């Protein structure tokens, strides 16, 4: 744009200079025409007066007519000076620069060449004038003859053109700038969008995704960024969930610890400060303190198990399943008898790779839960059977069962389906949470199905260890 406007202005300038030159030439030719006209008139006047030489005043008389004539033509203003730069005639008052007269005058004395013209451009009364001066010799006297031409219109048209060019340039520049801006905005839109989305993700809004506009490299980058954002969001959500679970766990734990503590502290305080405690009160209160302290002990024991389960050195070994089941039956049989429950055990024989003590505790826990859910005279079965590559251990009771909602929450720490009942049985709500952790480190699966009033079926599936014998 700058180049175009510069060239435009230079061309205009050149054009202007040419027209000035042409005007100057015109002025000079007119000037010379007038000079020759003056010479002719002088000669005619000399012949008429029959004198050898005309005097200055006679010359002026002759020239007066010519000057009067030239008044009609407004473009040409004529003046005549003698060699001392004194004005002899001036039909329009112009204060001429003396330098032009001096130079005209000085050349006049030494030279006989009558084709010397001096030009100057002057501003007179707000109009530009081209002044042409030349020395002339009339009747052996030296004069300086000055003509002047109005060239204002050239200047006016020049400045008009310059202004016009300027406006054009500015307008064109603006239009170009707008077009360029829009174009670059359009082209950069995917990038801007990408930038905005990534910075949103960077500030923590992990759900933001980049809109893919095109199939090029930018589109591919956006696609990859989206994959990255997905991964980040997933991880962050997992972390949040872990933190949330931990918070819930701690809240529940503090509640579970404070409940027995409140009873213990309260009754101990009463026993301490009350005067004349009856024997009945004494035994009642101390029994409650003992029970609640036992509950705290159970809680801390189970809690330690749950916490250390992933950290302790696990003692994995190949175990024969019938051997495992007979060990369990040995422990559970007397308990089932005291609870008046008929207990059936059946088992297929195979090998599984387990930590015996931990795995036993899972089955014992499940059986314990089954007892807690069962009435007297109910039945509980423990079944071990081979299904494809898995060994399935089922604990089936005909107890009170639980709802769908309970099944989904029952492995959460401290969740108890029937709080009052569970507490009476000495439960702390950590049994199934513990079981599911143990089952998890054995790469096994824990499934619970249950119907209210019909009983519960808990299945643990673990991979069978292939024996090559």
């Amino acid at each position: 744009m700058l180049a175009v406007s510069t060239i435009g202005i230079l061309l205009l300038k050149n054009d202007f200079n040419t027209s000035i030159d042409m005007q100057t030439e015109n002025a000079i030719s007119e000037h010379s025409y007038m000079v020759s006209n003056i010479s002719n008139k002088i000669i005619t006047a000399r012949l008429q007066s029959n004198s050898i030489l005309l005097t200055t005043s006679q010359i002026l008389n002759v020239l007066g007519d010519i000057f009067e004539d030239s008044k009609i033509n407004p473009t040409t203003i004529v003046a005549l000076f003698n060699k001392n730069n004194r004005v002899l005639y001036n039909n329009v008052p112009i204060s001429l620069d003396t330098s032009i007269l001096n130079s005209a005058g000085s050349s006049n004395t030494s030279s006989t060449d009558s084709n010397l013209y001096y030009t100057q451009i002057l501003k007179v009364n707000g109009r530009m004038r081209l002044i042409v001066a030349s020395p002339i010799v009339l009747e052996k006297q030296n004069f300086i003859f000055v003509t002047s031409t109005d060239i204002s219109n050239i200047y006016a048209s020049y400045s008009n053109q310059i202004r016009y060019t300027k406006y054009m340039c500015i307008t064109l520049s603006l239009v170009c700038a707008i077009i360029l801006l829009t174009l670059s905005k359009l082209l950069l839109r995917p990038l801007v969008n990408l930038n905005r989305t990534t910075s949103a993700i960077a500030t923590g809004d992990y759900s933001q995704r980049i809109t893919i506009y095109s199939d090029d490299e930018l589109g591919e980058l956006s696609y990859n960024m989206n994959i990255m954002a997905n991964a980040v969001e997933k991880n962050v959500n997992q972390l949040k969930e872990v933190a949330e679970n931990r918070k819930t766990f701690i809240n529940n734990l503090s509640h579970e610890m404070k409940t027995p503590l409140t009873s213990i502290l309260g009754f101990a305080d009463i026993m301490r400060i009350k005067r004349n405690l009856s024997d009945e009160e004494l035994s009642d209160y101390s029994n409650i303190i003992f029970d609640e302290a036992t509950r705290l002990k159970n809680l801390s024991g189970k809690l330690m198990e749950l916490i250390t389960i992933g950290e302790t050195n696990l003692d994995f070994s190949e175990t024969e399943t019938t051997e495992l089941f007979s060990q369990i039956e040995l422990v559970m049989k007397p308990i089932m008898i005291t609870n008046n429950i008929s207990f059936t055990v059946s088992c297929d024989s195979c090998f599984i790779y387990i930590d015996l003590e931990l795995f036993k505790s899972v089955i014992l826990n499940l059986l314990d839960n089954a007892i807690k859910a069962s009435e007297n005279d109910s039945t509980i079965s423990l079944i071990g059977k081979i299904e494809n590559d898995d060994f399935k251990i089922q604990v089936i009771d005909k107890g009170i069962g639980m709802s769908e909602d309970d099944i989904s929450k029952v492995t959460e720490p401290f969740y108890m389906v029937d709080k009052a009942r569970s507490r009476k049985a000495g439960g702390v709500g950590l049994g199934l949470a513990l079981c599911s952790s143990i089952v998890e480190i054995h790469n096994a699966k824990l499934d619970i199905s249950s119907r209210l009033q019909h009983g519960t079926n808990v299945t643990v599936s673990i991979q069978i260890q292939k024996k090559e014998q």
Partner: protein
Amino acid sequence: MIKILIVEDDENIAKMIRATVTMGGYDSYICSDGITGLKHMNSGDYDLVLLDIMLPEMDGFEVISKRTNDTPVIFITAKQDVLDKVSGLKLGAEDYIVKPFETVELLARIEVVLRRYNKNEHILTYKDITINIDEHTCRQNHTDVNLTPKEFDLIVFFIQHQDVAISRSQLLSAIWCYYFEGESRTVDIHIQQLRKKLSLKNNLITIPKLGYRLNKIS
């Protein structure tokens, strides 16, 4: 007699609270879930409700927001969250006690709330001493006894908690509103003054390692 409703799902805690309020000389009734608790609360038979927050069927916040009369409520909860405390008090509870708590603390808080509702005894008697709480006067054998304000508060507190051993720190927090020990000399001096002024030498006794107890006249 002042009747207190205890809404608490843990059987042993409910029993403990009952034993505590019985020591304070109040009658009590236990509800173990929110819905029956609300029903009893709305019957208007009770002067005060001790309400647990985590309750089966309906939690304590819901119970208090659904009550139809202005029976004063004190929350008793294991939740130590400030937010829980704020929302409990916003719903109109008079106080908020965090489990576990001390027996005397619970009794003192109940006493404060009952006094606020003008449900406490105005005239207290012990032996030949008669105390008028409204007039702030103490008379023994029909003659006025001059007590300082702290001494007055102290004898009122002891008469309200007869047969209960009260530690120096509990007295400090209840009467002087201090929550640190080390100022226990203050308590001792006031007790000595009380014994002398009201001739309680054989009734207001020192319990070693615990504090003081005003024995009930049988």
